[in-house]
Structure formats: C-alpha cells, structure tokens
C-alpha cells in the first residue's frame, strides 16, 4: 500500500467505474448502464432542476473573502459515487479503530501523557503546540470521549488502496450535504434507486441525537436538553447548523441566548429560562467562553468552560481536540493507533514530511513541483501549494514562505486521487474525488454508511475543497 511512483512520472489514475481494459467495475454496473442510455439533454435539465431545489432551500455556503458571492451553491454532480459492501466494511473497521485510538490519545495527552513517557511522540510536539489546551489537563469528560463528531477524510488511489488524509476532530462540517444530496437524488432519479440496494443515510440526525444524549453530564436526570450553538447566520456553515437542529428537534442557539446562573447553563426562552445539558457547539474553542479563552469573543457564553469543568454541562466536541488532528500530529497517527490499541493500523496514512525537521525540509524544497505542501493549522484548501498544478513563480514564492517558517508546514506526495464519472460540459468524464464519512462517538461508535464525496470539477484538478470550486456527489454504499 505504498505509493510507488517515481518522481516526474505521469500518474495513472484509478477510475472507480471503468477499468483500464474498458470493462466496468461491479459496483458501478447499473450506473454505467444508466449513463450509456442517458440522453445528454436530460442531464442538463436535471442539473438545473437540482440547482434550483438547492437554491430555493437556501443550501448555500459562504466563501470568505469574496463579497460579491457571499452565498453560493456548492455544485452538485448528478452521478452517484458507489462503494461496495465489502469496501465499506473495510473502511468502517479502519475508521472505528482510528477514532477510538485518537480519543484514547486525547485522554492520555490531557492526563499522564504515557505516550510521551514511552518516547513514541516528542514532548515538544505537544507542549509547543497551540492546539494543546492546558485548561483541559486532568479533566474527565463524560465517557472519556473528546471528539464525538468526526469527519475522516479518505482518498483512494487504487482497487485496495485507501489513505486517511485528515481526521477533522474539531467541528467538521458537510453532513447536511450528505443528507440533502440523497434527498435530491431520490427526488430526481427514483428509478435508479429501485435498481440498487443503497444503504440509507437518513438516520444520521437520530444517531447524532442519541450520541449527544449518551454523553449528558452525570448529574442530569431525565431526558437531557440539547442545543446546537452556532456563531450565527453569517457563518459559512449556518445552513447546516439550522438543518441539524431542526432534524434533531432541538433548539438552535447563539451565545447571546445562553447564560450561566447558579452552576447551570440556561437558554432564554419566551417562558423564562430553560436548562441546557449538552451543547453541540459549532463555535471554535477560542470563542467558546470569553472568561476562559478569547476575551473579545461575542460568540460564546461567559462562564461556560468552568461549568463544563465542573461536570454541569457537556460540550461537544470537547475543547482541545485540535491537538489530535493537528497536521504535525497527523504523521504520528499510525504510532498512536499501535500504542493504544496494540493493533496495526487498518487504514494507512499518507506519507508525510514534517518541514520543521531539517532533512525533510531539504527534501521538500528539492521536490516542490511534485509535492503538496500544507499549513499545519490551515484548512479549507487555503494557504496550500499543489506542486504539479502551480506555476514556477508560485512555487518560488511558496518556497520563500516555507523557508521563513518551516515548522508551519508539512508536505505530502501528490496523491493520485481516484476518479468517478461526472457531468461536464463535454458529456460524462472522469473527475477526481475524495470521501468524508461521518463518525459519531458516544456510548458506541456509529458510522453512517456513505458520507460526502467531494469532486474536483475542473478537468485534471486535484483540489476538491468547495472553497476552491469543488462540488459534491451523493455517495452510495451498497448492501451485499
């Protein structure tokens, strides 16, 4: 499962539908047949129909730094991405192993730090890391779960080659697109579903609710009251916050709706105050509580963190989970899995060079045109270099930034992301995809069969981020 690709060689991409000999892979049999009989005009029409459904429903996202397009639709590609039952079983096992290990790692890091004592991870990596939250040291969250809601980004490069690209343990988004994409597909192509046994994704909100209830504070009697905390309507994922609150049947609150009084968290309602037990927050750690963190934050609730530490309310995901999905830590995840589970990792990591190490930096600087270089704390495809797609000038400029702050970067080989058939102006054509399955950790691990497939709609592009012009697809996990 290593990537055997010599520098400079033209990569061969694995297509998930069509094999090099021209035959179709089994999971795609029905889709391939459907596509071959599909008049081109129909796809255009359905594409328009889908766009107008999404726009009317307000399924938009904000692109930071672009005022004229402050609400945009994520393009939706009509051709589903299909995953077989056995492929899914493999992914599921690998993901569960990984999220259990990462939660165990978080508990250890905020307690005895056995993994550092054992010499498996350098102490400096934790102690000098901005994502490490000293305020969490010694605290035991309910069920010892830190990251309850996880989006594990996975890429595929071959029939049996899957790699985890990122763990996303803080406040991953995108699950509403998974659910609405399925809604749209069932509306647009009901016949296609009758020819497959596609596992449903619709139970996600119910599973999320059960997960949140399962981590209510110990002292909470009766049904816990859950609230989704959003930064507000101008946040890029606001639609999703509202959607999830609605689907779970819980309140969507902003910081100003909440207050702390006599050792409990309350929301202001038209009938007075109502107690809140579990906060599914979509606000970053720094803004959660102006008394504990950023004092200028208007998005949080003064006193929330003390309440949390006193076990009077549960914050989901826990503050401080960023220490486990930091890109510098990422390179150690295989060791982390072995250390806490005693097992070999089921899912591989992408080989990663930590530019803070002089040897790695020299190697990376030497091979910038073929590597992907990312900021350790960056996300959303901002501030990254995709070597093969960059101009000489861009590479030279990036090299300067890299040399100025090497420890701020990691580098990875340009992955030969698999392709799936997609609708393009010139008919159906392969486009690169990745996959974000959604994982819930509470009383048990729950993984929704499917996830969000992101697709780079530009020909040849390997960047699937929606902020960089990527789209999404419905993701089908088939039953046996």
């Amino acid at each position, binding site marked *: 499962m290593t990537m055997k690709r010599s520098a400079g060689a033209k990569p061969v991409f694995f297509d998930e539908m069509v094999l090099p000999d021209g035959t179709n892979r089994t999971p795609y049999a029905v889709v391939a047949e459907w596509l071959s009989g599909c008049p081109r005009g129909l796809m255009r029409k359905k594409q328009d129909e889908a766009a107008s459904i999404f726009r009317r429903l307000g399924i938009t996202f904000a692109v930071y730094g672009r005022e004229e397009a402050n609400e945009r639709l994520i393009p939706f590609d009509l051709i589903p991405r299909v995953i077989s039952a056995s492929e899914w079983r493999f992914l599921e096992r690998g993901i569960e192993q990984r999220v259990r290990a990462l939660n165990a790692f978080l508990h250890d890091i905020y307690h005895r730090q056995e993994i550092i004592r054992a010499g498996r991870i350098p102490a400096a990596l934790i102690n000098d890391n901005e994502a490490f939250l000293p305020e969490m040291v010694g605290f035991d969250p309910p069920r010892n779960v830190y990251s309850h809601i996880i989006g594990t980004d996975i890429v595929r490069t071959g029939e049996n080659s899957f790699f985890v690209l990122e763990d996303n343990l803080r406040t991953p988004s995108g699950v509403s697109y998974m659910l609405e994409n399925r809604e749209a597909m069932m509306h647009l192509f009901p016949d296609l579903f009758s020819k497959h046994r596609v596992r449903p994704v619709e139970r996600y909100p119910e599973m999320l609710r059960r997960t949140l209830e399962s981590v209510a504070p110990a002292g909470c009697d009766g049904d816990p009251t859950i609230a989704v905390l959003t930064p507000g309507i101008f946040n890029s994922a606001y639609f999703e916050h509202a959607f999830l609150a*609605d689907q779970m049947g819980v*309140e969507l609150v902003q910081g100003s709706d909440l207050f702390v009084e006599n050792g409990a968290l309350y929301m*202001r*309602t038209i*009938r007075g105050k109502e107690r809140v037990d579990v906060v599914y927050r979509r606000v970053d750690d720094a803004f959660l509580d102006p008394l504990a963190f950023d004092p200028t934050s208007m998005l949080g609730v003064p006193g929330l963190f003390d309440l949390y530490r006193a076990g009077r309310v549960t914050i989901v995901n826990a503050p401080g989970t960023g220490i486990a999905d930091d890109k510098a830590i990422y390179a150690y995840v295989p060791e982390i899995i072995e250390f806490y589970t005693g097992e070999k990792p089921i899912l591989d990591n992408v080989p990663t060079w930590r530019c803070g190490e002089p040897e790695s930096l020299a190697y990376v600087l030497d091979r910038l045109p073929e590597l992907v270089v990312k900021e350790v704390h960056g996300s959303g495809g901002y501030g990254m270099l995709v070597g093969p797609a960059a101009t000489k000038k861009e590479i030279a400029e990036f090299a300067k930034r890299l040399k100025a702050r090497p420890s701020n970067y990691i580098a990875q080989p340009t992955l030969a992301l698999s392709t799936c058939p997609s609708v393009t102006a010139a008919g159906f054509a392969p486009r690169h995809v990745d996959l974000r399955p959604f994982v819930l950790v509470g009383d048990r691990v729950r993984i929704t069969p499917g996830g969000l497939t992101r697709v780079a709609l530009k020909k040849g592009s390997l960047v699937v981020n929606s902020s960089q012009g990527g789209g999404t697809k419905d993701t089908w996990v088939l039953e046996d």
Partner: protein
Amino acid sequence: MLGRTAASLFWMSRYIERAENIARLTEAGYRISLTPDVGQGHREDWKSTLIAAGNFDGFVRKHGEVSAEKAQHWLLFDRDNSSSVRCCLETARNNGRAVRTALTREMWEALNSTWIEFSAIKPADLASGRLPEFLDWVRMRSNLFRGSLLGTLLRDEGYHFSQLGAFIERGDNTARILDVKYYVLLPSNASVGGEVDAYQWETILRSVSAHRSYRHVYKDRYRPWNVAEFLILRQEMPRSLRFSVGWVERSLEGLHALTGGGATAFAEARALHDVLRDGDMDAIFQSGLHEFLTDFLAKNNAVSGSIAGDYNFN
C-alpha cells in the same frame, strides 16, 4: 421557544409588512406625480410620502432637496434607508434565516426566493414606466409570504409572534399615513372641499389600497369624515387601526393562554383596542385628530416594547 426566535419571527413579519406598505405608499406617490398641477406640486407630494414612510429626516441628511427620482430610489433601493424595500426584504430574510427551524419550508422559500429575485433587479431596470410593475411584484411577494404563513404555519407561539409583527407594523403605518395628511381630513376643511382636497383624500385611500373598498362601504363620494372613520374605526377595513389592534390583542391573548406570560402587553393592547372599539369620530375630532393619532402611535409602540420585554426578546 427562545426569546430571540420570537423576536426574529416578529421582525421578519414586521419587515415584510413594511416592504408592502412602502410599495403602496410609493405607488400612491407615483400616481400623483403623473397628474400635473394638483396640490402644491410634486415636490411637496414626495415630501409627504417620505414623511409617511417615516424617514424624511434621513433623506434630507443624505440628499437635501427632494426630487421624484431621488425619493423613489431612497424608498425602494437605498441601503442607507433601513426601511427601503431593499433593506426590508433583506432584514426579513435575515431574520427568517436566523430562525429557519421555526419556519415552514414554504415560508422560507417565499422569503428566500423573494430576496433572490430582488437581488437580480437593478434600479435602472425600472426606468421607462416599469415602476408600477415592480411595486406590484413587491405586493405579490408579500401576499405570497402571508399566504404561505397562514396556510402552513402551526398555530402555536411562532404564529402569534408573526402576526404581532405584521399587525403592529400595519397599525403604525396607517396611523402615520393619516397623520401626515390629517389637516385635509379636518371637518373645517370639508366646506372648502375643492378638487385638490378630493385628490388628497383619494391619495390617502390609495396608500392603503382602500379607494375601492371605501365606495363599497360608504356608497358615496370621498368625504374626509368618512375617510378618517374608515381608516381608524371600521372593523371590516383590514388596514384600519381598529382591525390591526384587534389582531394584536387576539394574538397576545393566544400567547397568554399558551405561555401564561405577556400580561403587560396584553393589558395594554386590550386597553388600546377598547378605545378604538368604543370610539366615535365626533369625540376624536373634538379632542383633535392629530393628538389622537400621536397618542395611538405612542401606545402602539409601547405595546411593541412590552411584547419584547414580556417575552425576553433580548
């Protein structure tokens, strides 16, 4: 229900109602400007339209002199005027967006598609006589929103807060329209009653789309006394003060029954409704029409403040 949710529902409906009212006012103003040589001239008419819309001062600060073109742009498109149709539609949508889970899908679609369609309209598109078409569109969108609300929203707290926003705004709007022109409605004026005045009376009725229903009720030419009565005391007139306050009282009663709260606002609305139900035009003219309207505006506003206080809007 969160206090903020209630506040957003209230303001969402209030701003949609305001957008519709501004469109009616602008239409009435536009109509006068097509008829030359009446009253004190166009400039004065646009001035009173701006006063009735409640933002003449802001207009003067920005533009100084009144012109038809500037007044229309200010009323419909100006971002500096928080009550322009543009700002009303945007604010209504933002409030709706903030409480999406409290709206039905149809209500949200009505709000959202209105804003999307509005965003595609450029002020220049309305040149060469297309203004009435646009104003019709605004009214139709308001009707669509109201229809989807009445047709799909559960009759719970959220419904009552939405109704409160709409009817507080409507009473306020009608009272302001009357107050701007109250002098042409005074009985002393009836004896003068020239063509100019008849035109003013008709303008008032048009501003609330009541110039035809007036004739159904009074079966007579426009008389200032009747015009005032129609817009203040008649319960069958859906934009009259009595009708609006009646709905405010009913909604507060419904909320009180559901929540056990809201005592202050309910008592104030009931008292205000009593005044209108028991009132007669003789007494109102006797004590002064302008004074009556000023008092109404203050009390209507006080009810709005008490609703916010009673139900934890902040």
